């Protein structure tokens, strides 16, 4: 009897805390409703809607050329890949065969985008676990890619370089040289990432065995990209449904079976090596030819349903178009990787500490405008 009373007196109480929409760890305007017992996470409920711009509805209003521009604003860190997804969907629907040159350039820039996205992720990942210097190293290398993009198409972030039927402009004469310079530079800098963060004993302790996601759960939550591959789920669209010039190159699909935060981290770092290898295979033999094929000024898709998926930096991006044969889609649905990946946050964070939640969330690499379209 005595002990029961004492236990009741010291009963710990769960409390509710509001993480976001303005919070340094939620990378934008994501709101997490946390139920916490001391430091232990009991429940995580992501609350979306703070940056909803109804992009899908706007797509129903716009022509197919205009839709491409909207996709930049979803996952702004892989804007080129988003553009490519819509363009490929439209081209497949129209049964246009784009020139080889376009395919190769799209793939090279797509992989550069992936590296840029991963370097930024690496920088903020380090910040989320408290190592502030990583941010600047990540941005140093990302800047060089952005410079290449700027020279190519005038924009650094929201590129709009793709149009249905090809590219907006041909590549700049300096393009090949600059990309090669970047690859040479980045090959010396990527090991620095490992020396600064990956090998650090504190970092290893923070990441290993934390936020575990099994392969079964990864599949049932619809995880894709590095999150799925960190759990051993082979889900690389580039490998399984190769598009553009990706069927001509050799690259490994990076897989880890541990399923913890460290595995997801390592997958992304390894992917940067693989992306560099893809670029190296393509950069020396960009075929000559036209940079676009002529399309009608008003693109009308045939009646029917069209689906195209690509591997964005965060995972599988799907574009599902329902056309009634007019110049606008009847319905356009984006399957964004971030949304599915965020849905498993509660699953991997419950039972961990607040610090674990932030670290696990960082390895999901969420971009809120991608989740909240």
């Amino acid at each position: 009897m005595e002990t029961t009373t004492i236990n009741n007196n010291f009963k710990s109480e769960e409390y509710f805390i509001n993480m976001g929409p303005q919070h340094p760890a939620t990378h934008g305007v994501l709101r997490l409703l946390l139920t916490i017992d001391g430091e232990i996470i009991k429940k995580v409920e992501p609350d979306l809607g703070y940056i909803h711009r109804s992009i899908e509805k706007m797509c129903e209003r716009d022509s197919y050329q205009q839709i491409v521009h909207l996709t930049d604003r979803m996952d702004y860190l892989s804007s080129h890949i988003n553009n490519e997804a819509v363009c490929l969907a439209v081209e497949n629907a129209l049964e246009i065969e784009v020139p080889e040159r376009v395919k190769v350039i799209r793939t090279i820039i797509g992989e550069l985008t992936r590296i840029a996205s991963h370097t930024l992720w690496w920088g903020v990942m380090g910040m989320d676990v408290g190592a502030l210097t990583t941010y600047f190293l990540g941005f140093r290398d990302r800047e060089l890619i952005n410079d290449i993009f700027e020279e190519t198409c005038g924009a650094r972030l929201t590129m709009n370089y793709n149009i249905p039927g090809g590219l907006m402009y041909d590549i700049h004469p300096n393009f090949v040289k600059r990309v090669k310079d970047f690859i040479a530079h980045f090959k010396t800098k990527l090991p620095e990432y490992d020396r600064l963060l990956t090998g650090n004993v504190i970092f290893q302790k923070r990441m290993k065995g934390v936020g575990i996601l099994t392969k079964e759960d990864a599949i049932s939550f619809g995880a894709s990209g590095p999150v799925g591959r960190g759990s051993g789920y082979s889900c690389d669209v580039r490998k399984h449904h190769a598009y553009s010039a990706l069927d001509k190159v050799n690259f490994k699909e990076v897989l880890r079976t541990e399923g913890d935060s460290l595995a997801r981290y390592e997958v992304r770092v390894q992917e940067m090596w693989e992306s560099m290898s893809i670029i190296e295979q393509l950069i020396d033999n960009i075929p000559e030819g036209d940079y676009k094929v002529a399309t009608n000024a008003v693109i009308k898709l045939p009646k029917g349903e069209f689906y195209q998926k690509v591997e964005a930096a965060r995972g599988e991006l799907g574009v599902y178009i329902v056309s009634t044969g007019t110049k606008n889609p009847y319905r356009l649905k984006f399957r964004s990787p971030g949304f599915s990946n965020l849905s498993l946050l509660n699953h991997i964070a419950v039972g961990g500490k607040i610090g674990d939640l932030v670290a696990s969330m960082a390895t999901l690499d969420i971009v809120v405008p991608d989740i909240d379209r």
Partner: protein
Amino acid sequence: MNISLSITKNIHEWLFSIMPEGVASITEMVLIAVVYLAVFAVAGLYLVLLERKVAAWFQLRIGPNRVGWWGLLQTMADALKLVSKELTGTEKADKFLYNLAPYFVIVSALMALAVFPFTQEFQAFDINIGVLFLMAISSIGVIGILVGGWSSNNKFALIGAMRSGVQTISYELSVGLSLLTMVLITGSLQLSEIVEVQKNGWLIVQGHIPAVIAFMIYMIAGTAETNRAPFDLIEAESELGAGFHTEYSGMKFAYFFLAEFINMFIIAAIATTVFFGGWLEPSWLTSLGIAEAFPAIGVVWFVGKTLVIVFLMMWFRWTFPRLRIDQILTLEWKYLLPLNLLNLVLMALIVWLNLTIQL
């Protein structure tokens, strides 16, 4: 001979000649306190600038360079801004404790400075339990953090404050024990005496293996005491926003901020005094006789050595990721504390068997 010393001596004599004894000593104390306050408030500001410059150097940036030459007036401008800012706070805060908390932190930081021997003569307050005094004073600061976090009526601040309580109480043990290890050699808690003993070689040399272990433990625990990365859980930006000082603004925030840097200076100054010979010059320089000609040069040695250790702590901060709360406690209670106790026994053996290195 010693200009600075003769000035203080002259002031001392002049004060006692024009006033009754009691009034004169009180006036002298107030004067010294004001001078210390002014000097260390400015020193704290320049430590902020140093931190920003060091961080910039690590992070491929330039750092502050707009206000004043090389950004030298930047932190002054920041301080002015913070002083002139309106103080805002939460409506439902516990007003009395909320306003009191910053003073705990800043006063404890400034009080600790009183006992450091900057040179042989330049020491405000030479008590025979100097090390104990430092330990006692530096633990008052955590009360301020706890009270501040609790009274802010903010859950993030509360989590930060709780973390700080847990962390500081744990790591105080390691700081105390590692300093005690060194006290075994000196046989005195008086800081001036501890420096005198090191005329035969700095304590880190005299105590060789256990001293080096004690220094490492001291640096880890000292960094945790000052709540700096990798132990900055109490304000963990990516987890808690700003931790315990989330609701503080203006001058009250500036107190917390300044106290962090003065505390860092104190931790480094203790290390200098106890491990690296305080104001003594390296033994290979004694033959030049600089110290005999200008005893005030000790200040340069003291501050120089302290800044090297401060730089070390900045290096930690801008390199390491942050530990998790349970890892911090595991590190202290399962590794540092047993190691520290073993080290204490080892040091006792070495002192008992006379194995210390005397130069």
